């Protein structure tokens, strides 16, 4: 596998208040690999992703993206090429829209300002619904979905973006075994197509089965590398047994 980094993060420090939530993070996500971000609750995983995507202003540090023919560019240059599925979306599910409407929104970035989605976009969105196992849901009202189905609709929307980098914050939380397999198979397929997939993951049992690389985070980067090398009991213990966010930060 080639070792080019799709996202490289250097000396990133982020704080919501006086105490830094992320401290001097230097890490990277390799192109064409499926990477898990692992750490306990409150470790700063979601914060890391939000800073990478410019939702949060870091105190210091740089984040650079590299895809196909754009090397080391900031996020705003390639927004279109990055698809993001947040941990919990607080959208109004009573919004007057069908499932297909929502998936179609994934195409908006490619269309750019003012242009409307056409037949090709609709067909592609329907394909994505088929991929996430909701082919019969296209014209269903979004208020009539279960929690797991909502998550899959958002996954389909991200797939419709046809991005190069996919960042998913706990896509497997609250879904059943069958859906989990469907989602992981989809992500694996994306990686086979050369795309970069980054997933915040909680289930330590499945890390070895599902992922290529792993990054352990608990305020700082504890360990990182290919799963075979980095996913060791020692690293797990170190990440989980120091609950750094419970006590006062040590400076």
């Amino acid at each position: 596998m080639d070792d080019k980094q799709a996202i490289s993060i250097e000396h990133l420090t982020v704080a919501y208040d006086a105490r830094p939530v992320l401290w001097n993070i230097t890490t990277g996500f390799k192109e064409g690999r499926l990477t898990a971000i692992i750490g306990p609750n409150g470790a700063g995983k979601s914060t890391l992703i939000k800073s990478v995507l410019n939702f949060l202003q870091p105190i210091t540090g740089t984040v650079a993206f590299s895809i196909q023919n754009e090397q080391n560019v900031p996020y705003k240059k390639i927004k279109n090429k990055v698809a993001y599925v947040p941990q919990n979306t607080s959208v109004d599910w009573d919004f007057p829209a069908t499932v297909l409407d929502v998936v179609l929104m994934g195409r908006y970035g490619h269309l750019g300002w003012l242009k409307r989605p056409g037949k090709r976009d609709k067909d592609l969105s329907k394909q994505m619904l088929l991929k996430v196992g909701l082919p019969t849901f296209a014209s269903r009202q979004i208020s009539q979905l279960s929690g797991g189905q909502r998550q899959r609709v958002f996954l389909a929307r991200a797939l419709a973006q046809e991005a190069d980098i996919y960042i998913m914050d706990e896509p497997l939380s609250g879904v059943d075994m069958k859906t989990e397999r469907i989602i992981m198979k989809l992500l694996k397929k994306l990686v086979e197509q050369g795309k970069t997939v980054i997933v915040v993951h909680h289930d330590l049992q499945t890390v070895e089965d599902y992922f290529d690389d792993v990054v352990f985070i608990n305020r700082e980067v504890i360990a990182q590398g290919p799963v075979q090398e980095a996913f060791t009991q020692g690293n797990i213990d170190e990440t989980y047994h120091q609950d750094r966010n419970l006590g006062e930060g040590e400076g």
Partner: protein
Amino acid sequence: MKLIIRIETWEKVKADMLEQIRLLLNDYTFQVVALGTGFLGLLSGVIGTYATLRKESLLGDALSHAALPGIGIGFILIQRKELSVLMLGAIISGLIATVIIQTMSRKTVVKLDSALSLILSSFFGLGLVILTSIQNNPNAQQAGLSNFIFGQASAMLRSNVQLIGLTGLVLLVLVALFWKEFKVFTFDPMFGRTLGFSSKIVESLLSTMIVVTIILGLESVGVILISALLTGPSVAARQWTNRLSLVMLLAAGIGFVSGVTGTFISSMGARIPTGPSIVVVVSMFVFLSLFISPGRGILARHMAYRKRQKVFMKQIRSLEE
């Protein structure tokens, strides 16, 4: 004999009333004004759909109330009822109120809804004080300034109607152009940002459109009730359809009918303010829709529940046998 006389007087009353209605409908001024409020209702229906879906109806309410002191101060400065100056005053005090609301809810411990109601009432109170003190100073020009509180469509000039028409047309074109951007930023603004659209541009365009609609309606509907015209039509329309475009179209229709009917009612009696009569019509649409609309209506849901209950009870009973 008595009965016949009574019937005759009733016939006469009816004929008089019909004659009055006929005269009113043929009255040029009424036609102009009704067209103005009708179009205003249409516009409120369309733009209000975004306001309700973005859960910003309360913000609209606060903004319109906050416009009152600006109107008063505008009048004091030029001592004339020049609509453009009064509107400018309304916009400025509305903006000041918005800034205060945002800083209050962002920087301090005041929750947004508390900040909204606080600003709404304090600005409105200030506005009332200013208007009352203007009325205590004799100046022939001040007549009709209090129309801004409850709205008086008959005070509208032809030029005001033209202004509403022109500005409204611009807003409708913007809605058509930025349809998909407005849709995604109304449903999921965070996602809209990750798509590469500038949230600053889209969101400020949306809020400006809401503010402009409010300002346009201040004179004819009044600061107190304009936000009801903004939210009512879309709330009613939402009950009938699950598609954004249809919600908006229906809201436009309801807004138009309410505007025209409300103006008609207000013109029939002496000194009935337009704002309240428009809002009464809107409210009728809302309550009717909440009750009888198929699918989402209270009645339909109840009936569907009963039907389901019956079917399942039958199944359970047949299993028990």
